[in-house]
């Protein structure tokens, strides 16, 4: 024991003194190790916070810790969609059963049923919405013909429509310059133009006053289709037990509006999605420019992108003009003139041009004027809180199903409001999802039973039942079918107003928990009490499902995130690859330096061996040298890496300068965080590489024979 201790002491002494004696070599190896540790610490802490961001975004907004779906599914569950669109999942026929079985598994906190899909939403273009209002005004006047207030409203509305027609005519004239007047569809365009001109002349409006319904008919059928901005948009939604969803995903909050009342139909639009796709483009552009200016200190004068946005804003002033009826336009003029210090009498188009003539000096002021003076008069989002919207989606049979749901608010997720993952998916009640998908809900089960008795059959095949269900449209039903495979825009738009009344009863009916649970879901999110035990729980959930014969596949959130998760995986792969390359090079350099050191010391090592030092002594000596260098410089590198991370954090993080980065960072900037594991991992890695690179030189040292000390040449 004592002998070992003495030998170890002299071993350490020689090793350390050798390090000092060959300073240059020590510093070279040390610096390589230092840079390596630095890269690993900074890289892994960036990766860790990307991971953490993704984890929070995915687990907190849709994923939970585990996901289950039918093992009979053709495709894989991809919560955020794959390259080929949404996952092809076989439905889980009775969610209640899943909830019952899996709810008993230890560590399972909650099970939230889901069905994710894309759907078309009729937003109605301005023309369409205004005409709907005009029809309402006409109806009111017919109900109370003498009401002066109603008449004034109608007149203002008419003036609005006339303005829209004028704007449309202008737009069409501009568009025509671009197309060949004698080309294909030329005759169609001529006919369209004739229709528009017909509606623009005073005679049409005199006739309108005589027979408003015929006039409306003409406007709706002939003129509306000419409005160029599309009247529908795609949304991605998750149909779910909304109450359970809001409880399970604690970060979820209603940004505007209210929560969907318990058990009722309704939709919460993804806030992120709304900002990007539903917001009035002018407002959106202003937001974007402000963001770039405030956070990245970008300047309109310098950045081509900002100049493009300014130009875009200017050219879209017409969209604002179209939204305002003459009374509102006058009010807008009254507000904007003093705010913009415009000459008296300047009209709205000129005022808007002035407002959107943005530069770095006036931006902040004009931004404020826009939001304080103009925005309150505008429909800022194509869909507003309180609207009832029609959602259409191709059902299982390929035919379109549609439901009307009330927009209760926008949904966003605390702390990750700007994440590209959370907040892009809208949340819809489960019944509406089932209707859209054509799955049998409890309502339909009743109907199915009725059909069954009518047909006198005890056995009805699923296809037959569905055909019977979807073939005709019962009174008060929301489900309709179009046989057309293509999207019929007119029909979509028709959904906006027409169906509202009819569906009223169903819209406000509250469903019981029973009804919500007993029915189809495509997948379900499982939230755990202790997310740290995810592996163990995954196995337990799978086992429980198998035991109950549920035919479910259980995957973790990372797998469920599909492309998103793979992207992070890819990124990590790149980092690891870079680290491997670096350490590969480091290994070679360190190895070379150590081999040279070992060769230079052959005589010394031989002498020690002759005097009586064992092989392990000389090998140990070399390893101590390299390990000491690695640990000292590795720690220094890790500390330096910690410093770099601290500096990055202190200066506000690494800004996300592109959409991709924004998405990756789950927000506007990446705040890397030092994880204990990343430091330990980096040290282990550095040490491993150093020791590995010392192995060959150590082998050389081991093979040095004492004879070599005897040789006379020095």
């Amino acid at each position: 024991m004592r002998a070992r201790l003495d030998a170890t002491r002299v071993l350490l002494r020689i090793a350390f003194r050798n390090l000092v004696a060959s300073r240059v070599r020590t510093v070279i190896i040390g610096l390589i190790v230092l840079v390596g540790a630095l890269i690993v610490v900074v890289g892994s802490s960036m990766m860790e916070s990307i991971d953490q961001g993704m984890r929070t975004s995915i687990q907190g907004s849709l994923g939970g810790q585990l996901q289950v779906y039918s093992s009979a599914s053709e495709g894989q569950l991809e919560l955020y969609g794959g390259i080929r669109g949404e996952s092809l999942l076989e439905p889980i026929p009775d969610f209640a059963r899943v909830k019952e079985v899996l709810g008993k598994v230890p560590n399972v906190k909650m099970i939230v049923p889901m069905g994710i899909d894309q759907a078309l939403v009729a937003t109605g273009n301005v023309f369409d919405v205004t005409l709907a209002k005009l029809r309402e005004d006409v109806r009111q006047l017919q109900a109370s013909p003498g009401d002066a207030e109603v008449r004034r409203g109608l007149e203002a509305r008419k003036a609005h429509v006339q303005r829209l027609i004028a704007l449309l005519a202008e737009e069409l004239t501009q568009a025509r310059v671009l197309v060949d007047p004698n080309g294909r569809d030329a005759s169609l365009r001529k006919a369209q133009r004739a229709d528009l001109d017909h509606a623009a002349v005073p005679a049409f409006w005199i006739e309108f006053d005589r027979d408003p319904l015929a006039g409306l008919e003409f406007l709706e059928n002939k003129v509306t289709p000419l409005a160029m901005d599309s009247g529908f948009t795609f949304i991605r939604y998750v149909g779910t037990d909304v109450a359970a969803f809001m409880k399970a995903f604690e970060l979820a909050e209603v940004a505007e509006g209210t929560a969907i009342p318990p058990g009722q139909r309704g939709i919460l639009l993804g806030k992120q999605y709304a900002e990007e796709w539903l917001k009035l483009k002018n407002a959106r552009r202003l937001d974007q420019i402000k963001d770039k200016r405030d956070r990245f200190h970008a300047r309109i004068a310098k950045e081509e992108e900002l100049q493009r946005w300014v130009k875009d804003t200017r050219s879209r002033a017409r969209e604002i003009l179209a939204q305002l009826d003459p009374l509102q336009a006058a009010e807008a003029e009254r507000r904007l003139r003093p705010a913009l210090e415009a000459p008296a009498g300047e009209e709205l188009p000129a005022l808007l041009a002035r407002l959107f003539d943005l530069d770095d000096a006036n931006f902040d002021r004009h931004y404020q004027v826009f939001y304080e003076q103009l925005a309150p008069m505008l429909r800022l989002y194509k869909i507003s809180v309180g609207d009832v919207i029609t959602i259409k989606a191709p059902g299982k049979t390929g035919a379109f199903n549609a439901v009307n749901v009330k927009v209760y608010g926008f949904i966003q997720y605390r702390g990750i409001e700007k994440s590209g993952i959370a907040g892009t998916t809208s949340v819809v009640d489960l019944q509406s999802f089932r209707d859209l998908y054509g799955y049998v809900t409890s309502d339909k089960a009743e109907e199915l039973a009725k059909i069954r008795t009518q047909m006198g059959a005890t056995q009805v095949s699923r296809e037959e039942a569905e055909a019977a269900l979807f073939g005709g449209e019962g009174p008060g039903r929301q489900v309709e079918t179009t046989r057309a495979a293509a999207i019929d825009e007119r029909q979509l738009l028709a959904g906006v107003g027409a169906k509202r009344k009819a569906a009223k009863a169903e819209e406000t009916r509250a469903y019981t928990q029973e009804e919500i649970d007993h029915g189809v879901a495509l997948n379900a999110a499982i939230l755990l009490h202790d997310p740290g035990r995810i592996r163990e729980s995954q196995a337990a959930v799978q086992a429980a499902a198998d035991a109950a014969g549920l035919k479910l596949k259980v995957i973790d959130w990372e797998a469920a995130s599909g492309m998103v998760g793979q992207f992070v995986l890819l990124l990590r792969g790149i980092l690891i690859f870079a680290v491997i390359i670096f350490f590969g090079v480091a290994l070679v350099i360190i190895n070379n330096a150590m081999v040279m050191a070992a060769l230079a010391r052959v005589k010394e090592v031989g002498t020690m061996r002759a005097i009586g030092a064992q092989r392990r002594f000389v090998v140990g000596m070399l390893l101590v040298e390299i390990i000491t260098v690695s640990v000292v410089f590795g720690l220094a590198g890790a500390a330096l890496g910690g410093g770099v991370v601290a500096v990055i954090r202190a200066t506000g993080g690494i800004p996300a300068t592109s959409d991709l980065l924004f998405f990756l960072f789950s927000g506007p900037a990446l705040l890397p965080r030092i994880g204990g594991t990343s430091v330990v991992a980096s040290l282990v890695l550095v040490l491993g590489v150093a020791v590995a690179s010392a192995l060959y030189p150590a082998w050389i040292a081991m093979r040095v024979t004492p004879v070599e000390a005897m040789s006379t040449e020095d």
Partner: protein
Amino acid sequence: MSIIQVRDVTKVYLLGKTQVHALRGVSLTVDKGEFLSVAGPSGSGKTTLLNLIGCVDTPTTGLVEVGGLDTSKLTERALTDLRLHQIGFIFQSFNLVQVLSVFQNIEFPLLLQGGLTKAERAARVNGLLEATGIGEYGRHRPSELSGGQRQRVAVARALVTRPALVLADEPTANLDSQTGQNIIDLMRDMNRKDGTTFIFSTHDPKVMAHASAIIRIADGLVAVRELVGATA
């Protein structure tokens, strides 16, 4: 009583494709307490013989016994221990550890052996520093010393474990004759006082004169073993 038995030892080196017969059948017995000189011209096999006796090399054929142990039957580790505990080496080119002080160089084998207290080690090292006449250089690095002084350190290091046998391969070759003389005197002193067995090679007749016996080898064979009458 013999400490070394060498019987019919041959050593063949392979130099490329040619075989070099460094030793062609050497037999030899060395008794405890001898002060033996191995003499012969350059290339005669002196170093080879010492390497075999010192257990740093193995014979092609024949038997080498050190302290009654057949060295061919010992493991690498056991041979190392044998060198550590039984044998002291003095190299022609001194071979000191550059990063250690003179004191630490001498102490080195004691630390490898272990078992002594710090005070015991210091006593031994200091005793040898005095005995070899470099008492004031204990804290110096080898590079700060002259050749003769370095060889004294090497002698002290070889003796510090009180080995039964000390091997020295041309210990005076790199020294001027006066310094060489002093080193030989020093070794002779140790031999007389402690009865340590010394085997040293040389081709310097003046050095040989101090030996109790001379083994003359030529061409890998022992030509003659002569006693130097005066010191027998």
